[in-house]
Structure formats: C-alpha cells, structure tokens
C-alpha cells in the first residue's frame, strides 16, 4: 500500500493536482462541482484505483460501466467519497481486439458484481477477478447481448 | 429539523412489560373496528372514489380526433394502431385502435394528443374473456362521461421566455414547432399534402422546371392549421421537411 499522506476529504482541485502529479498518464478532462472526470490508460487502472481508495479515501465504488463504441470499448468507474460527496469518473479505453482490464475487486469488494455484469453483457474480461461468471444471463449464453453488434430482433 | 423517533427508541422493554404494549395496541384497534367498520373497502360492491385525472384506459372523442397518429407514434408499448373507421357522415377516416392487452396506462396518448381528442378515463375494470375482446376500436374507446378534467394538457414554458423574464406564459408543446422545408431537397411529390390530417399543407406552384417544362410544386404550410403532428416529416421520401423546434 502506498504510505503517502491520506487526504480525507480532498477538493476537486486537490484531486486534480494529486492525480496528475502522481500519475502523469492520468488526464483530468473536466471538473465540476463535486465531480472530477479523468481518463487513463488501462494498464494504470489498478494502481490509480488503489491510490484513490487508500490515499484519497474514496471508500465506495458506485459502478463499473461498459460502453461499446464499436471500434473500442470503454470502461467507466464511478468512485465516491463519503466525506464530502465528491465523485470521480475514471474512464479507460480498451481496443476492440483485446478486451482485458485489471479487476478492481481487490480494492472495492462492491465492484465485484458490477464487473461480472459488465463481463457478461460486453465481454470485457477483468483479470484477477475472483469469480468471473455470468450473473444475470443463463450460464449457457455464448454471446454478449449489450454489444452494438447484437441487434434486437423486433422493432418498435 | 428534529429527530422524532431515534431519541425515544430503543428503550428498556422490561419497563413496558415486554409484550404488553403491542397486545394492548392490537386490542384497542380490535375494539375500534368492532364498533366501527374496518378500513377495507368491499371491492365489487363498493368502490373507492377516483379523481377525474385517474389514468384508466384511454378514451377517444371520435369527432374531435383528426387521425394524426401522434398517439400511435408516442405509445411506448406500441399498442395503438390507426385503423379505418366510418365517421358520422359516412366517410372513411383513420382513427386509433388500442390493444388494451398491451396498454401500460401511461397516459402518453392523452398527453401528446394535439387536439385533446384522446383522454384518460377512470375506467379500470377492463378484464375480458378473450384477447380479441381486449381490442378497443375507435367507437368502443368512446367514454360517455368524459369531463374536461380528463384531458391531459401538455403545458410547457419556453426556456427563452424564462430568460426574457416572462415565465408566466404557457403554451402547448406543439404550438410553436413547425415543419420547415429544405428547398433543395424537395422533389414536389405532394406526399406531405396527402398525409396531412388537417390539410394544412397546400402544394403551390413556384415557377416551371426549365428542362422538362413541368411546374415546380412546393408545399406551403398554413401555420394556423398545423398541429405539428410530424406526419409530413416522417413520410417525406427525401427528408426535405424537418421540425424546427422553438425553444
């Protein structure tokens, strides 16, 4: 674990400077009131998440979201701080031919089911996930229904 | 504001003799309900009062309807279909038919109806023996006791009005939106004029084509008649018409 100073309720600007100083790869795209939007390469996800959890005290992982942009996929993490209501939106792009990203379940236990869900609906594989199995769909499913390539049969 | 419950509980239950207070509370209600009637309503024999805006099955006022198909377009469950019907004068017109088996009672048809012909009705006992019986044709959709309270008005305020400091003004969603023609795309096929339910579109001659010598027809929209139902926009083969939203 990183032994650096712990910031219990960092402001938006603090989060921005701390993140960009510590990890030059992280690009903070936008800040609003109680919202910080950042982009980062996928190799750094686990490291940054650990830092955010331990040192910036973002104790809660709201969601792990997959978005299919056809040419690439994006995984979005929403992390929230229980002391000042700050939220960080981390998004990381995955190339369409290599859908692997490090699992953050070891950091936030609550991300477990969200990652499973993203896996089964988008086919994004979370490495080192304790139990990466289908959750909502039957175990016999062979396709990933939420991808854009999966068309609905009926039309409105 | 004050905490109302957490400062009283949890309390020492031995003082209230463990189970005596709940038993006494129940016994009090027992005495009350033996003397008076219980709160339940004997449903098939007596019914609860429902307000006018209660969202039961949709109702249709046949004469008011113009057959624009806005209800069918906005229906989230796609249960409304436009069918041919014979009106009082013997003409064949398009009117909505509702499949109550699919209806979700969301009230969108009444809300988006530009002429308020669709209403909500307080009728909720619509069980039938067969699925076919659940199809409500245009005449069957009529509800006798329709009151003005059953119309759903779509009142909106324009953001620009609020910015101008005139927030009082309320208009219907469709009052100001009008279809707009991109002249270069139009081929003069008269389709928009055909589908317009209120005949607000007339084809006007705008000169002659130099090569063929035929007249160039362009739709002209009567703004006082238009109800912004988007039929012309949807049916335009070349996407020449587009709704211009006023915000």
């Amino acid at each position: 674990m990183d032994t650096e100073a712990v910031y219990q309720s960092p402001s938006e600007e603090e989060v921005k400077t701390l993140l960009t100083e510590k990890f030059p790869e992280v690009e903070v795209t936008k800040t609003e009131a109680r919202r910080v939007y950042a982009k980062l390469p996928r190799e750094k996800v686990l490291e940054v998440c650990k830092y955010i959890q331990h040192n910036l005290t973002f104790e809660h992982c709201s969601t792990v979201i997959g978005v299919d942009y056809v040419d690439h996929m994006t995984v979005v993490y929403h992390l929230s701080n229980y002391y000042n209501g700050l939220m960080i939106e981390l998004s990381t792009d995955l190339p369409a031919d290599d859908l692997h990203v490090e699992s953050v379940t070891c950091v936030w236990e609550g991300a477990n089911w969200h990652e499973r869900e993203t896996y089964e609906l988008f086919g994004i594989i979370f490495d080192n996930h304790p139990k990466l199995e289908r959750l909502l769909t039957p175990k016999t499913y062979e396709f990933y229904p939420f991808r854009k390539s999966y068309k609905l049969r009926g039309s409105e | 504001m004050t905490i109302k419950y957490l400062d009283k509980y949890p309390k020492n239950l031995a003082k209230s003799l463990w189970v005596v207070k709940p038993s006494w509370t129940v016994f009090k209600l027992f005495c009350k309900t033996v003397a008076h009637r219980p709160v339940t309503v004997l449903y098939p024999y007596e019914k609860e009062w429902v307000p006018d805006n209660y969202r039961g099955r949709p109702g249709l006022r046949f004469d008011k309807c113009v057959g624009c198909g806005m209800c069918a377009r906005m229906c989230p469950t796609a249960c409304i279909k436009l069918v041919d019907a014979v009106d009082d004068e013997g003409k064949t017109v398009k009117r909505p038919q509702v499949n109550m088996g699919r209806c979700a009672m969301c009230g969108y048809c009444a809300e988006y109806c530009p002429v308020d012909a669709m209403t909500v009705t307080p009728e909720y006992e619509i069980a039938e023996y067969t699925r076919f019986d659940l199809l409500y044709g245009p005449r069957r959709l009529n509800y006798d006791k329709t009151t003005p309270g059953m119309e759903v008005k779509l009142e909106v305020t324009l953001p620009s009005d609020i910015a101008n400091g005139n927030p009082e003004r309320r208009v219907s969603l469709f009052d100001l939106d009008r279809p707009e023609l991109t002249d270069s795309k139009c081929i003069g096929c008269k389709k928009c004029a055909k589908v317009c339910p209120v005949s607000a579109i007339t084809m006007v001659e705008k000169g002659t084509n130099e090569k063929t010598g035929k007249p160039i027809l362009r739709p002209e929209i009567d703004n006082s008649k238009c109800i912004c139902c988007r039929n012309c926009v949807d049916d335009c083969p070349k996407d020449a018409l587009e709704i211009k939203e006023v915000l």
Partner: protein
Amino acid sequence: MSDSLVPVKEIEEKMETDKMWIIMGPQHPFSHGLWTLKIQVDGEIVTDAEPIVGYLHRGWEKEAENRIYPKIIPMADRLCYAASMTYTHLYCMTVEKALGIDIPEKAKYIRIVADEVCRINSHLMWLAAVGTDLGNLTVFLWAMREREYFLDLNVKLCGARMTTNYPRIGGVRNDVTELFDRDILRTVDRFEKAMWDIIALMDDSSIIVSRMKGVSYLTREQCANIGMTGPAMRGCGVDFDIRRDDPYDNYDKVDFEVPVLTEGDSYARYMIRIEEMFQSCDIIRQAVQKIRALGKNAPYRIKTPTKVPAGSAFMRMEDPRGESLMYLVSDGTDKPYRLKVRSPIFTNVSTSKVMCQGCRIADVPAILAQIDMCLGETDR
C-alpha cells in the same frame, strides 16, 4: 500419551456434522420477488450463502437504446414498482444534465414532494415485508393501510397509483392539483400519528427487537467497501446521504436530519428507515410551503429539445433503498447510445453472504428484509 488415546481434536473433526445446502427461492415466502438464495447450513447455523439473481433480466438498458427519450420514462417506472417516482426522476435529471438545462423551481419542489411520498411508500412496503418476514401479519396490514393513503396522494397528483410516469424531461407532467397541498399535509399529519401505533407493535415488542438486535453485524469499513448504500449503510455508521452531501434539485434548500447509527446490526438498519419516514414528512411540509409560496402560475415544465447533444452525463440520487445512478451516453440523436442504471439493491444483495454468515436460518429473512429487495431494478 499412549496410542490408544485419540486426540481430542481428531474426535472433533470426526464428529463434524454434515453441511447442507438449502435453496431458498425463487418461489419462497421470504424472497420478495424472483431470486434465489442458496444457504449452506450446519444444523441451524448458516455457514455460507450465495445469492442468484437474473430471473427478471429484461435487457432494460438495451431496450432503452432503441427508444426515443420520452418513451423511456414509462419504462423507468417499471424498474421498481415501489420506488417508481425516484427512478423516473433520476432518468429525467440525467437527461437534463446531458442537455445542460435548468428546470423551473416549482418543478424541483414538486419533484421533492413526489420523491418523498415515494420514499414513504417504499419504506412502508419494506416495513410490511419486515412484518411478514418476522412472522407478524398485523404489521404488514397496518403498514399497507398507511401506504394506501400515500397511494391515494399519487392518484390525486398524477392519476396513477404505482407506476406514476410523473416527472418529465424539463419538469413534471402536470401541475399540482387544487387542494393537493391541503390533502398532503393532512395525510402527513395523520401518518405521523398512526406511525406510533406500528412502532408500538414493532419496537415495544421484545420479540421483534430481540430478533433483530445483534444479528448480521457490519463494520463501517466493511460496509463502505462492499458497496452497501442507503439506510443499511447509515445503520453501520457511514454518515452520508446524497440528498445532503451531494444535493440534486432543491434538496439543499430544505432542512432535514440524516439519521446515523453506529450499531451496524439489523435493528439499526430498521431504526434508520423508520426515522427517515419522519424526516420525509418534514421535507414534504417544507416543500409544500415552498410550492405555495411560488404561486399558482409559476412554470413547472419547460420545453426541451428532442435531440440530446453528444457526450456523456451521469447523475446519482438517494433512492429509498440506496444510491442509484444513471449514466447516459448520447450520440446526438433522439435515442440514447447507452443508458446504464446502477441499482442500489444489485450491490446490496451481493453482500448477503457477509451478512448471513454465522446467523441462524430463522434470521435469514429478518436480515434480508433489511435490504428491501426489489428485483425489477436488480436484474433490470
């Protein structure tokens, strides 16, 4: 030690009882909805638990990608039958955020009122479920009786009892009806009095208190880490309420307390919810005053464009059950490109293993009642 003596530990190992898997659900009186809880029991003690969800997976998010924006509002109602108003509200807020518009003050207050009525509805539904899970049908019926008055309020407000379809992108469906403020204040006053009867049935009964006290203990860190949100989280000592700490609409302009307890057991979660109902009554009173002050003719809905500019937006709100979040990706058309719902119960139910371990079979319904299951939003 001679060889004839078998070590005590070995005997204990040999005497270990067989563990048994019991599958509770999907048709089981304790599962309020279609889900399964597999529990492994050693006699009466639960040693392991595994929740299985997905029976109601409708592909809500995929379905939403094929609909224009207004048509998703009735669908958002159907995410959770007990908290339909909050999901519709959340969806509308998300689209408004993506559009970058600000809605009229009156609409915000009406939404607050509708939300808090919905919160009381949902909590009463939960209270009814707790009653039956603990084996007291009277609580169920009394709570349902109180809930009926709030459903009547819903009818007066928008014409529907449960799937309200009330908030709209840019405001609300219709203005508050005449005398609605009078009705709601009466209902709230009446409810606060009637609530003490139910509390007498629950909190003054030593059986109910002893069944909930001290079971399924969670620490603050554990609770935050496994992603539990809502009243269950505040019962574990996390002092966080999105309405107060990350306010949306006009929640920063009303005054209310956020109840927090540090006990972390089932009873604390129960108490938080009861107190929240009283706080909701306070919020309703203030918001109704604000609506009155704004006058009859104040705008309540603004016109919004049908197409949402490209980009992404997310909003979160305090659902009756916890933190719900919607994430919207738009590509500039009139249909969303991706709409993700974060349901609080989806995460809360994944904690059932931690909560049930070490408890008895009879505790399982009492513990899982505190999650307040609703499968519509869990499976989506």
